[in-house]
C-alpha cells in the first residue's frame, strides 16, 4: 500500500482513503473564506505536531504575521514552531519561487534541507496568473513548479481561489487541476436561508476516495468534517433542494 501523508483532519483523511499520497501535489479550491488557508495551515501544523514532518508555508500575498495571528486563534504556535526549526513561513512571489526552484541550490531548496521539510502549503496558486494569462503556458509553468516540489520530496497542498462565490465553477481543458494528484473543492451552500460549507474530494490519482459531499465547519480547533448532506441534491449548485421523499425512501434510507 502506498505511503499516506495524513492531514490529521478528522473525516478528511477517511475521505481521501487514508490521506494524501506521499510526494504528490494536492489542490484545494474554494471561494474566499471557505477555509482553504485554514485547511492548509492545519495540514502543516498537524504534520509537525502529530507526525514529526516539518513544513513550509509559501505565501504570495499574506504576510507571515497574518499566518501567525490566524494560527494563534486555533491554538497553533507557529512562531514557536518556527523558532524550533520545524516551520518556515516564506513570503515571496510566484516568479521568484519558480525561478528559485529551477536552479540548483536555490533558497527554497535550502529551507527544505535546513528543517527537513516534508510538507508545503502554497497559498495561493491563483497568483501564478501574474506570470501568464495564457492557460496553456500557465499549465506548463505550474506543472514545472509542482514537479520541483516533488523533486524536493515534499507533499504539497496548493490553494486556489474559485471565481464563483456560490455554485460550480468551470474547468477548461487546460485547467491546472488536471495536473494535480488530488483535487478538493470547498463550497458555500445555501440551505434553509443559512450558508453552510461543503467539501468534495473530486479526485485522488491512483487511489479510491469518498464520492459524497460532506459538510464541514471551521471550529476553534480548525476544520472538522461532518456528515454528508442527507436528503438533498444539487449541493454543488450552491442552492440544493430536497430530494423527493419517495426517492429518499427508496434509495437513500435503504
Amino acid at each position, binding site marked *: 500500500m502506498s505511503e499516506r501523508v495524513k492531514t490529521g483532519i478528522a473525516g478528511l483523511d477517511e475521505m481521501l482513503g487514508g490521506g494524501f499520497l506521499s510526494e504528490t501535489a494536492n489542490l484545494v479550491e474554494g471561494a474566499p473564506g471557505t477555509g482553504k488557508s485554514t485547511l492548509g495551515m492545519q495540514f502543516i501544523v498537524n504534520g509537525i505536531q502529530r507526525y514529526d514532518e516539518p513544513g513550509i508555508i509559501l505565501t504570495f500575498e499574506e504576510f*507571515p504575521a497574518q499566518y501567525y495571528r490566524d494560527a494563534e486563534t486555533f491554538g497553533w504556535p507557529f512562531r514557536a514552531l518556527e523558532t524550533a526549526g520545524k516551520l518556515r513561513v516564506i513570503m*515571496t*512571489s510566484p*516568479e*521568484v519561487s519558480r*525561478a*528559485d526552484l529551477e*536552479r540548483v541550490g536555490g*533558497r527554497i531548496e535550502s529551507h527544505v534541507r535546513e528543517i527537513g521539510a516534508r510538507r508545503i502549503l502554497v497559498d495561493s496558486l491563483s497568483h501564478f496568473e501574474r506570470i501568464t494569462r495564457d492557460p496553456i503556458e500557465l499549465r506548463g509553468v505550474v506543472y514545472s513548479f509542482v514537479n520541483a516540489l516533488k523533486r524536493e520530496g515534499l507533499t504539497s497542498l496548493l490553494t486556489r481561489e474559485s471565481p464563483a462565490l456560490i455554485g460550480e465553477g468551470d474547468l477548461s481543458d487546460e485547467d491546472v487541476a488536471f495536473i494535480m494528484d488530488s483535487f478538493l473543492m470547498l463550497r458555500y451552500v445555501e440551505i434553509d436561508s443559512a450558508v453552510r460549507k461543503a467539501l468534495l474530494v473530486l479526485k485522488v490519482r491512483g487511489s479510491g476516495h469518498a464520492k459524497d459531499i460532506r459538510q464541514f465547519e471551521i471550529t476553534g480547533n480548525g476544520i472538522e468534517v461532518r456528515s454528508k448532506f442527507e436528503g438533498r441534491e444539487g449541493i454543488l449548485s450552491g442552492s440544493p433542494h430536497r430530494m423527493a421523499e419517495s426517492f429518499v425512501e427508496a434509495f437513500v434510507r435503504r
Partner: protein
Amino acid sequence: MTNAGGDLAARLMGDMDPELLDFLKTKVNSFVKWDLVRFFYENPNSTDTADNVARYVGRDVSAIEVELGELVGTGVLERSRVGDLWVYSLVSDAETRKRVDQFILACDDRQFRVKAIYHIIRGMR
C-alpha cells in the same frame, strides 16, 4: 551664547546603545531603509525583486531601489541573481540578524524611536 541644538544632540547621542547608534548612523540612515529593515525583520525568509518588495512596503520601486542597494552595500541585505531576476534578502550572517532584531525591538520604545528619528533627520541635513 549656548548651542541648544548641539547640547540636545550630545544628550541624545550619549544615552543610546553605541552599537545601535552605529547601526542607525551607518546602515539605517533613512526612513525608507528603516521601513525596509522592518520588512525584512518581519519576513526574514523573504527573497524577492525590488518591484515586489516595493509592493510589500507600499512604496514605488523608484523610492526604494537605491536604498535597497545601499543596504546591500552595508551588509544588511544581499542581492543575488535567480534566473533572470535580481532578488533581495536579509543576509544570513547571525551577527547582522541579531543587530537587526535588536534595532527593531528597541523601536518598540517610544524614547528610542524619537532619538532614532532625530538621528536620521540630522543625518539627512
